[in-house]
């Protein structure tokens, strides 16, 4: 069981299954949403994810058609993404996890949109946008 919580502690969640496909996304939407150099996220099955406290504090913003990013309305912590076109999966930003997920981001995506003030210095694969399928 993986646990996570927002900065103010009002929102808490648990994940009972694996995190998959962890990556760092440098697209401008992720950078702006997080106010950070990049977003680190993993996929989690919707059936494995459960809000354990404060779900009503989560504000959802539709950042592109069908993609909703949720954050705590009290502290602003970025908590989860859900997708109208893929309801079985959520996108989990790793930053609010309290437990070690045991996985690490395995690639950088959308590096063509990387912040000019951040250099990627690790050896992970880099993709201009999404990796080839």
């Amino acid at each position, binding site marked *: 069981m993986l646990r996570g*919580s927002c*900065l103010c502690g009002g929102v808490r969640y648990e994940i009972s299954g694996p995190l998959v496909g962890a990556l760092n996304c440098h697209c401008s939407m992720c950078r702006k949403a997080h106010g*950070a150099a990049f977003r680190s996220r993993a996929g989690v099955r919707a059936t494995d994810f459960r809000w354990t406290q404060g779900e009503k504090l989560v504000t959802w913003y539709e950042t592109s058609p069908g993609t909703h990013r949720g954050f705590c*309305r*009290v502290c602003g912590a970025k*908590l989860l993404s859900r997708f109208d076109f893929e309801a079985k999966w959520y996108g989990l930003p790793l930053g609010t996890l309290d437990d070690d997920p045991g996985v*690490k981001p395995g690639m950088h995506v959308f590096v063509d949109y990387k912040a000019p*003030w951040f250099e990627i210095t690790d050896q992970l694969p880099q993709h201009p946008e999404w990796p080839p399928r």
Partner: protein
Amino acid sequence: MIRGSCLCGDVRLEISGAVSGGSHCHCSMCRKAHGAAFGTYALANAADFRIVSGADRITRHASSPGVSRTFCSRCGSTLQWLIETKPDIVEIALGVLDDDPGVRPARHIFVGSKAPWHEITDDLPQHATWPGKP
């Protein structure tokens, strides 16, 4: 002029002077607020900083005594880190900038609290907490 904006575009900001002192902060509070591996902040003089639009959209969260963090109440973008003892300074989350601030982060701070799933691979100085503290 350095411009910034939140994801939804409601909040727009401008910095008319230079920014300085960029740091990557790995403390657990920054990681949670940003939902990210770390937060990156640089300093602007408050006199040079202006909210151009959307001031009524900004929520301020008192995250520790004397410290508050701001974000857009509509889209959640993290915007600022503010400390009461330094009212002349605004720390800006670089992720919301639209223009290149020129400054480059020069250090990692609070690496003692770093996420286990993130590795620091650059050559910047690393500080366990604040620089100058054991």
